[in-house]
């Protein structure tokens, strides 16, 4: 028989160590499909490490890939703190990107000091608006937000395709379904010349710091944590549960929307229907690896981004499908979930 005894104090160091161990376990488990696919395991992982962090270029690629994951990871971390399971970051990202090109590709003219904040605000507002519906349905009527946000992802992606074939289609795009390019004044500037790294990264990091202060040092943060721990007791204690949920939903949606703005205005330059390679879903894994701690979102995003960037290199050098990255990330989510048990409980084995 397994018995779980709750731990009284939860040590942050132990929690972090266990979560890192879980990621290592995921990499070890992924060696099985790698081996079955016929790849030499250690050289393949060496190629992955080389591709993720083996050169300055590799590091900047990993940082560039981590940028959207910081936003979506933080989006999930804040929402999950309140037990608001926002799985709709993918859709919010796309709607945010659409709002970014709507204001940033010529509709408004002005200097960067005006256009860049406008693009970011538009994207955040679009993402927040999209998340308000499912949050309200959950808070008011108890409709499961996981299902509604997942279903909305499909709706939004179709809407984006419709817009890219319709009003948002670039007349100079050679017939491809893509938006007009973001104006240079509206673009997030690159951090290093001729590298793909852009200002989205520092913005994401600053937001993680702000989120940390919000969660741990403010009344709203206390309410978020209380609603997550026990909504009934929170309501009894006079916390406005629905209003707290709506605030969290808006913040979470806004962050995912910013991921979209960061990608179109910082990296791609225009919107296409394949903007995100599952960044919304990967954000959930980032948040879980980070233990829902805003400060830990940055290193967790780097880890997940490293897996994705490294897997591309591994794929090229060893002929393994880059779906191995998605596999590792999925395994990491499950392993971290199990590791959480060992953080919260003493697990004892007993004979019945």
């Amino acid at each position, binding site marked *: 028989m397994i018995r779980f005894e709750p731990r009284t104090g939860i040590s942050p160091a132990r929690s972090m160590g266990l979560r890192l161990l879980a990621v290592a376990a995921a990499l070890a488990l992924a060696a099985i499909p790698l081996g079955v696919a016929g790849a030499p395991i250690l050289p393949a992982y060496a190629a992955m490490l080389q591709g993720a962090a083996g050169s300055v270029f590799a590091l900047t690629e990993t940082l560039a890939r981590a940028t959207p994951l910081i936003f979506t990871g933080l989006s999930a971390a804040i929402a999950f703190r309140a037990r608001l399971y926002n799985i709709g970051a993918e859709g919010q990202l796309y709607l945010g990107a659409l709002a970014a090109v709507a204001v940033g590709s010529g509709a408004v003219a002005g200097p960067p000091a005006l256009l860049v904040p406008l693009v970011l605000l538009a994207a955040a507002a679009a993402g927040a608006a999209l998340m308000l519906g499912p949050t309200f349905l959950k808070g008011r009527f108890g409709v499961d937000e996981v299902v509604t946000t997942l*279903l909305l992802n499909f709706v939004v992606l179709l809407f984006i395709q419709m817009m890219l*074939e319709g009003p948002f289609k670039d007349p100079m795009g050679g017939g491809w379904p893509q938006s007009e390019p973001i104006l240079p004044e509206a673009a997030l500037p690159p951090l290093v010349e001729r590298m793909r790294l852009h200002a989205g990264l520092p913005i994401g990091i600053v937001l993680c710091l702000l989120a940390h202060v919000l969660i741990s040092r403010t009344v709203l943060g206390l309410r978020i944590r209380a609603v997550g721990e026990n909504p009934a007791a929170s309501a009894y204690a006079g916390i406005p549960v629905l209003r707290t949920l709506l605030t969290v939903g808006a913040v979470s949606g806004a962050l995912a929307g910013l991921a979209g703005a960061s990608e179109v205005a910082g990296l791609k330059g225009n919107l296409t229907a394949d903007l995100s390679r599952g960044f919304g879903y990967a954000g959930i*894994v980032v948040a879980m690896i980070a233990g829902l701690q805003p400060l830990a979102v940055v290193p967790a995003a780097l880890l997940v981004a490293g897996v994705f960037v490294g897997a591309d290199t591994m794929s090229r050098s060893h002929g393994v*499908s880059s779906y*191995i990255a998605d596999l590792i990330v999925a395994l990491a989510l499950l392993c971290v979930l*199990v590791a*959480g048990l060992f953080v919260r409980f003493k697990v004892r084995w007993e004979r019945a």
Partner: protein
Amino acid sequence: MSAILDILASASFWAAALRIATPLMFGVLGALICERSGVLNLGIEGIFTAGAMAGWLAVHLGADLWTGVLAAALTGAVFGLLLALLTVPLGLSQHVAGIGVTLLATSLAYFTYRVVLPTASTPPRIEPFGPVRLPVLSDLPFLGPALFSQTPLTFLALTLFGLVAFVLYRTPLGLAIRAAGENPAAVEAQGLDVHLVRIGAVVTGSAVMALGGAFLTMSAFNAFFFEMTGGRGWICIALTVFASWRPGKALLGAILFGAFDAFQLRLQHEVAGAVPSQVFLMLPYLLSIAALCLVARRADYPKALMIPYVKGQR
């Protein structure tokens, strides 16, 4: 208006409705079995994908169609067992574990596909199930082409509905499953192991879900495509709520949904060009959300749904 009536009066429309409804029938039935025992199975979307992949792969590698169906069911059962172990004895978050199983099953299916076919851009076809011809019934006017021209998997889905309804409401096993979802302490008071009942239900339900995926590659289409499940799993979760966790209503809901989808496909054809096709493609998802909201106020959730059971604790 008469165009709409023409659509509804055609046998081929109802045949399409049943065909579209079949994967949903498997999915909603599987979800219902899991949820009746108290476990929300959000692994469904990945189990659909893995089932579609496993069935197709088995046949592609030379097995016969029914062996493919069995391979799909076993694959579903394996992922069901994983989800059950995480959520039942370990009592982990059913939301996060379910999403994790979906991500794992989907990526494993895609990875396996690329191991078998590293570079193929057009997926190889298999010889799928053909329609069953029943003596007399298939020759009936209207009803013959509408109801009795389906592939064997549709009939399997309908049979499973009857079987599950019988087991749930007429057998001690069904009582134990329903009680595990309503009042697990009562199950334990009967000397039964709540965890075993739930694990069994999740494994069985997941095997049934996987058949919905197998229908896609082995009946509806004849190959495996990336992202071919297209959110059908999530739609099934919504349909389960809409059906108040009752097999009869679930069957009706799946068929209504199939009819709606078949109808929008035809309507899309009628007004081609005037309205963007994406508007029609959005409708199934929006309809699912609407269905959820419609019943939300009076949804009769199994009372222990998503509540882990710890032995000896009330």
